[in-house]
């Protein structure tokens, strides 16, 4: 299945052949998420910004997704404007992107 189109979606000068922005939450496991993303043809995938475990850094699925998809950070879970702004700023640093979505 492909969502390819001859009319690309262009955001801030970046062209996408798929208009689908895929969420990454609530999949039953990582393989289902990977399979769903592959089948969807999506090129943009959402990511949340979360505190890391202080037990040490372990690679997350997002480390893998980042090479294949454009990760779109969001401010989900923030309860104040200050939280949302800081989370967006952290996302910009972590993902080296000025893009952010609110949800």
């Amino acid at each position, binding site marked *: 299945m492909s969502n390819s189109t001859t009319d690309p979606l262009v955001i801030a000068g970046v062209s996408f052949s798929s208009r689908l922005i895929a969420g990454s939450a609530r999949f039953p496991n990582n393989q289902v998420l990977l399979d769903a993303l592959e089948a969807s043809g999506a090129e943009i995938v959402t990511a949340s910004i979360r505190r890391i475990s202080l037990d040490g850094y372990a690679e997350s699925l997002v480390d893998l997704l980042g090479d294949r998809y454009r990760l779109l950070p969001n401010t989900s879970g923030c309860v104040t404007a200050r939280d949302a702004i800081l989370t967006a700023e*952290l996302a910009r640093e972590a993902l080296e992107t000025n893009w952010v979505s609110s949800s």
Partner: protein
Amino acid sequence: MTRLRINGEEAELAVATIAELLVERGIDPTARFLAVAVNGAVVRRAEWPEAALSPGDNVEIVRPLQGG
């Protein structure tokens, strides 16, 4: 020893900079997709080796995860 609040947890650690804090916590400072804020302000990655921590600092260490 420096008393810090790290991701909401109090800790007293012998670290002087953000880079030292990450290493002490078993986090590779060169790992991709990391971001750090101190007292509500983002500290750029390039500044981690020199960014001094002071007693009472509130440090947030984050990375992207599935969600949203």
